[in-house]
């Protein structure tokens, strides 16, 4: 049985340097040791840290994983993403609740268990999944939930649960230069030292590496501008807050290719999303190993003055923190709300100092470029979108997982690879991305095509068997798929609410307007009051229904329709990992 102890507040505060900027980390530790963050703890923290209580309360109440009331010894949070729904998450949740005799969002009468939903936890390839006290349990089915229910009723501590419950395969289906080639820790650093930092920046420039987080900003430009900016300190932040529903590429990179990422990120902080807590110990041990080898810390590789270290900060359940300025706010211990830009982080970021924020994958790419040079990198892909891209594929397909593909491949090629040749519609780059019908499957994964150079991760192949006698899942009905991306987040609900009431008619915002209004990639901080984004000559992306309506009319298509199978029934991993050369050259 897990007992939550009275927590040692002064100890926790001291561990984080008595620095209010580490508030999120302090609150995480309090939550972990007490099970809750009680109101009087906020007062004690205010005294210990010398900041007003209201400021601590603002942070504590912002994050989903912090709560003032007890969630019992076992807090179970089901991942609530559309893929989980398609895989039967609601029924499984009801099943578990029934087994445990409780209602969702209500602490069980004996104070033992609490069951609720949480946003996508980055396991769409192993849906449905859940977090038990922050630890991910993937590929749920009745058997696994029976086991979980038994363990809970026996009050077994989480540490004694069978490890197989927590096993998370990488599911890398197609490898490329990023994931397939061996990497010797230190190789990129040595190459950088040998070449000099100016020459390395020039290589990055030649490689034309663009940010892999979504906006596609040129990495060399960002790094050069941050390097030039004046400040007492320069920070490098690795954005591992992979929150876009349906994405899990960073989880895999960090799990299996952490050295590659750390080598790119030379100094600074990693913001690891709270949902990936199970990666924390592993990452810490990689960091420790690198320190031992002289690849991190003071005088790296024996070079005097080359001092860098990396600290890991955990998030606490807030999708918005994936936006770079919100992430910086969160690193500073505040609610993760986007800042106004300009100034951009390269001039005024973490602690108001010049800061580079890049995605996990970008750092891995940068390390490869440092190792092999820019030309080798740019040889793959298209002129505007160089290199390869990790695509997270999930949903109604035979082989969900990670596919490393050269930029420029078509959606159709990926669908063939993942076993969804007869897909009706694909949601590209998560709910805030683009839904395309089969007529557009020849479109290419590249910054210049799909989708406007925004997020490229997350192809959700789905709704394949719509006509096979199966009901369209309610969440796939168009009105549920309305996302208003960058309107201040609290307005989002207003728009969605209205979408429900008004049926298919948008929100009254005119959506035939030109492009200028949504010119902000991942622009949480900027305003993009646009429920429907229209692409010249392309589909009106909000209209999933149209995509789905179109498909069954095609004669050739119908032949491919089979009765809908449950995702859980599909044969697992029956294809060995392959290399991406299969696409020939694009």
């Amino acid at each position: 049985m897990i007992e939550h102890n009275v927590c040692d507040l002064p100890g926790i505060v001291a561990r984080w340097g008595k620095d209010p900027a580490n508030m999120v980390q302090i609150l995480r530790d309090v939550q972990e040791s007490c099970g809750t963050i009680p109101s009087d703890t906020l007062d004690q923290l205010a005294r210990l840290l010398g900041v007003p209580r209201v400021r601590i309360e603002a942070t504590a109440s912002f994050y989903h994983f912090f709560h003032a009331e007890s969630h019992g010894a076992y807090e179970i949070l089901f991942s609530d993403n559309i893929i989980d729904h398609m895989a039967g998450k609601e029924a499984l949740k009801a099943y578990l609740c029934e087994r445990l005799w409780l209602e969702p969002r209500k602490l069980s009468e004996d104070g033992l268990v609490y069951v609720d939903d949480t946003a996508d936890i980055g396991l769409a390839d192993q849906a449905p999944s859940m977090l038990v006290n922050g630890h991910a349990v993937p590929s749920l089915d009745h058997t696994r939930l029976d086991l979980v229910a038994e363990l809970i009723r026996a009050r077994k501590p989480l540490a004694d649960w069978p490890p197989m419950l927590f096993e998370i395969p990488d599911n890398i289906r197609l490898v490329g230069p990023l994931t397939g080639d061996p990497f010797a820790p230190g190789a990129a650093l040595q190459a950088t030292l040998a070449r000099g930092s100016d020459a390395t920046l020039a290589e990055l420039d030649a490689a034309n590496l663009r940010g892999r987080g979504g906006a596609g900003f040129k990495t060399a430009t960002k790094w050069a501008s941050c390097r030039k900016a004046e400040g007492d300190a320069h920070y490098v932040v690795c954005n591992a807050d992979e929150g876009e529903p349906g994405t899990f590429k960073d989880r895999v990179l960090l799990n299996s290719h952490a050295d590659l990422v750390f080598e790119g990120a030379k100094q600074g902080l990693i913001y690891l999303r709270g949902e990936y807590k199970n990666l924390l110990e592993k990452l810490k041990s990689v960091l420790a190993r690198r320190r031992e080898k002289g690849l991190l810390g003071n005088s790296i590789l024996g070079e005097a003055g080359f001092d860098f270290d990396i600290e890991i900060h955990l998030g606490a359940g807030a999708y918005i923190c994936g936006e770079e300025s919100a992430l910086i706010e969160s690193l500073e211990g505040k609610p993760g709300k986007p800042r106004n830009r300009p100034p951009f982080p390269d001039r005024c970021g973490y602690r108001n100092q010049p800061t580079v924020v890049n995605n996990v994958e970008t750092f891995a790419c940068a390390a490869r470029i440092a190792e092999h040079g820019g030309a080798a990198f740019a040889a793959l892909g298209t002129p505007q979108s160089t290199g390869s891209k990790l695509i997270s594929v999930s949903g109604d397909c035979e082989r969900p997982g990670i596919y490393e593909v050269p930029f420029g491949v078509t959606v159709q090629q990926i669908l063939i690879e993942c076993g969804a040749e007869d897909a009706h519609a694909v949601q590209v780059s998560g709910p805030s991305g683009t839904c395309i019908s089969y007529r557009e499957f020849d479109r290419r994964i590249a910054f210049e095509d799909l989708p406007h150079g925004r997020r490229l991760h997350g192809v959700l192949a789905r709704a394949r068997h719509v006509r096979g006698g199966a009901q369209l899942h309610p969440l796939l009905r168009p009105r549920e798929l309305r996302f208003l991306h960058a309107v201040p987040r609290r307005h989002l609900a207003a728009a969605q609410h209205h979408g429900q009431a008004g049926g298919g008619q948008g929100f009254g915002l005119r959506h035939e307007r030109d492009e200028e209004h949504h010119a902000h990639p991942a622009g949480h901080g900027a305003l993009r009051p646009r429920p429907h984004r229209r692409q010249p000559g392309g589909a009106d992306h909000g209209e999933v229904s149209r995509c789905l309506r179109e498909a069954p009319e095609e004669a050739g298509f119908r032949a491919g329709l089979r009765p809908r199978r449950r995702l859980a029934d599909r044969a697992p991993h029956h294809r060995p990992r392959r290399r991406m050369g299969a696409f020939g050259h694009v």
Partner: protein
Amino acid sequence: MFIPHLCHHPEFKPHGSCKLYLVNIGGRLGAACTNRAADGMKVESETEALNADRRALTQMLFVEGNHICPSCEKSGNCQLQAVAYHLGMMTPHFTHFYPARDVDASHPDVLLERNRCILCELCVRASRDVDGKNVFGIGGRGIKSRLIVNSPSGRLADTNMSVTDRAAEVCPTGAILRKRHGFTVPIGKRLYDHHDIAEVPVAGMKEPRRD
């Protein structure tokens, strides 16, 4: 010229949260209150497209709170109401949320009416930067965001708020009101009953601007 806004006040650091001040700066949308003007910069504000967006945002502000103008003490002096008139908002358009929000009447001199709060953080800034008290803050996330106060009980009476604080008078809506001053000026004879907000953009300005 007038750029509609609700969270901006010339005395305080720009905050950039109401998004009504959105302008087109050289082809990109930007906040008029946080972007510095520069030589050669081309800025558009009074376009039909921008005003339509501003109107929609104002409508969203109305439906996500409980703004019942006819019974509100601030009616006629309220900037939210005045901006809505200025932008020609005729209906709320969106479905009302009718959220359950707390009223805090615990303080002897100040009433906190969270139903009317638009989370502009002017009171937060005034209390922190001018009064040096940190009485207010914003708690929660997304649609659950709410105005919180600096006391373990969560009651305004248990903070060191005083009616003479700057924070007590900056609210653009009727969320923070001084007690015992209700309806001293009758509705119909108030500031925005006679002037468009473009003429008197800052609450508390005595004379309408002439330009």
